[in-house]
């Protein structure tokens, strides 16, 4: 099953199981979303549960928060992760802290889904990774699945979670990443990383589509005798520190990989934690492979390709790391 279908299945099953779950977003109704994630859901569940929103992200998220406070479990689709910023205040000032500020009286069970990532020639506004902004916000959870199995299982967990969960789906993964997805109900717990490949010499830590780049690089490196462990964070907030620390304590070398730009990315936090809590085990400095610090990926293929981090970058850094 393709990743896009897994997301759709997750939505459909949760909507069927819980009448409180409803969708709101732009073009998600008859059009099925610009990526077709919600295709068929309007027909199945009707316009009361698949709501085409005005072109107004802040309003959309604000409405969802209100509905969540009155017994619903809204799932918001932001058309592109890039367009989440108009709703930043609603997310950071309201959704994230409603539970804390009311001393637990008002939880906000809400999911914000958004396609993220570059490599689709979408230019500066259809290519971004925005997870780092939200990973800095206590009260929010941030999930970035890499496989169809996880996408469905994590989405179901997110919808059932009583906290606001941001759920980022790499748009390039929708139709290119395939995998087994069992029929019916299961969840993947939020906050648990997983080891995708065991290895001895170094640890690659990543999430989302970049996990596949890590696996590809690990394959190349294996042929050179460098054995990489690949840790898929799956949830970037709260981080499963135990999981990646365990791996790094074993391998003594770590490289974090993401498509978001380097400075202040999720990799910074992971590196800081490793540098502190695996200090005694490190045989080499913690490395990061990320997009360079440009505002977002430019449109022209020659420019975008020059900036997109990929398996060759990982291989290069990993070789240096192994040789350190």
């Amino acid at each position, binding site marked *: 099953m393709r990743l896009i279908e897994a997301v759709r299945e997750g939505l459909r099953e949760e909507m069927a199981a819980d009448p409180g779950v409803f969708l709101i977003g732009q073009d998600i109704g008859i059009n099925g979303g610009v990526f077709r994630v919600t295709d068929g859901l309007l027909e199945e569940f009707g316009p009361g549960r698949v709501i085409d929103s005005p072109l107004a992200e*802040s309003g959309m998220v604000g*409405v969802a928060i209100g509905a969540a406070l*009155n017994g619903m479990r809204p799932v918001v689709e932001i058309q592109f992760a890039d367009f989440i910023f108009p709703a930043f205040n609603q997310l950071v*000032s309201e959704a994230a802290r409603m539970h804390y*500020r*009311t001393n637990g*009286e008002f939880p906000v069970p809400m999911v914000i889904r958004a396609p993220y990532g570059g490599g689709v020639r979408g230019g500066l506004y259809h290519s971004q990774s925005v997870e780092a902004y939200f990973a800095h916000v206590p009260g929010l959870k941030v999930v970035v699945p890499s496989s169809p199995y996880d996408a469905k299982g994590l989405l179901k967990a997110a919808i059932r979670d009583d*906290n606001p969960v941001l759920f980022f789906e790499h748009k390039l993964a929708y139709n290119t990443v395939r995998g087994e997805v069992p029929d019916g109900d299961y969840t993947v717990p939020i906050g648990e990383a997983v080891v995708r490949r065991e290895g001895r010499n170094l640890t690659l830590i990543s999430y989302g589509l970049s996990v596949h780049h890590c696996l590809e690089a690990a394959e190349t490196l294996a042929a050179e005798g460098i054995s990489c462990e690949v840790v898929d964070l799956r949830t970037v907030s709260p981080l499963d520190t135990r999981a990646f620390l365990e791996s790094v304590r074993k391998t003594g070398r770590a490289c974090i990989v993401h498509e978001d730009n380097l400075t202040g990315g999720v990799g910074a936090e992971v590196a800081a934690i490793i540098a502190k809590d695996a200090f005694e085990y490190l045989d080499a400095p913690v490395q990061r492979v990320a997009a360079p610090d440009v505002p977002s990926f430019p449109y022209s293929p020659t420019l975008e390709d020059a900036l997109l981090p990929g398996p060759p970058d990982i291989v290069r850094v990993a070789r240096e790391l192994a040789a350190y």
Partner: protein
Amino acid sequence: MPASDGIEPLRGSGLDGTDAQRIYRYMLLARAISEKSWLLTRQGRVLFTMPCDGQEAADVASAYALDRGNDFIVPYARSLGAMLVKGMTTQEVMLNMFGKAADPNSGGRQMPMHWGYKKLGIISMGSSVATTIPRAAGVALASKLRKQNAVTMVYFGEGSASEGDFHEGLAFAGVHRLPVVFFCNNNGWATSVPVNLQSAEPQVAKRAQGYGFPGVTIDGLDPLTVYQAVKAAVDLARSGEGPTLVEAMTIRMMPHSSSDDHLRYRTQEELDAERKLDPLPRFRDFLISANLLNEESDQTMSDSVDQEVEDAIELADAAPSPDPDSAMDRVYAP
């Protein structure tokens, strides 16, 4: 003092004499709490307040038009009068003012006058103004989806109506004909910025027609007018006919907050003139003329209100502060 004496002048408002007396008492209570809170900040016993002096008629009478057991309020910082009508006790208000552990709004986590009380259908507000407006539309959307027979009323100032969230919230509510009433308290000021610097059209209610539902501007200093207008809006909302924007013209008799000095931007003469419009004596005179109140009963009511506030202050002051060890609790719902 038989309530029936006063029914005649109340005719058309939908309220009887007892209602009018209740409204008056709520107004007195809101004023007393507001004034006392101000004094407490001057004494350094409370760290912050936002007075509501001048908008008691608007807040109390509008909330009085709700089905208090089932409807929702999304308040703002000056909605004290509405909170009292909705069921908050003076004691609870004071626990909030003093930031105590038993503050039902936030357990002392939020500033004074930052309301939110699940049991009473009061949806929590933060300080970031106007975020409440789409939130109220969302509460009302859920009511519609869940077939609750509830109306949501959201309060905000005319300054806050400048935020984009105002626009987005109203438009959404209009499209879905949601059971929500947008109650704008137009006191002419956003802190020191007068309304003419917010919009070249001073009447906020005019914006409603852009969203396809009615907007009305009313005298917010007369509780009967407010009650009637809001009751009509609430009935419309409840019958499935969608939202109304009610703009109540009020006055801000006090500075913006205990951190503000309004003499930096208003003259004493202007303030004195405005004080003559105080809704409290005006409504008192009305009640007296309608035989619903006399000097004596007014005094009795005032005394009981003052006593209530004093008792609440004493208890709140003595109540325990939040446990520092709890400071990191409840970042996430379990």
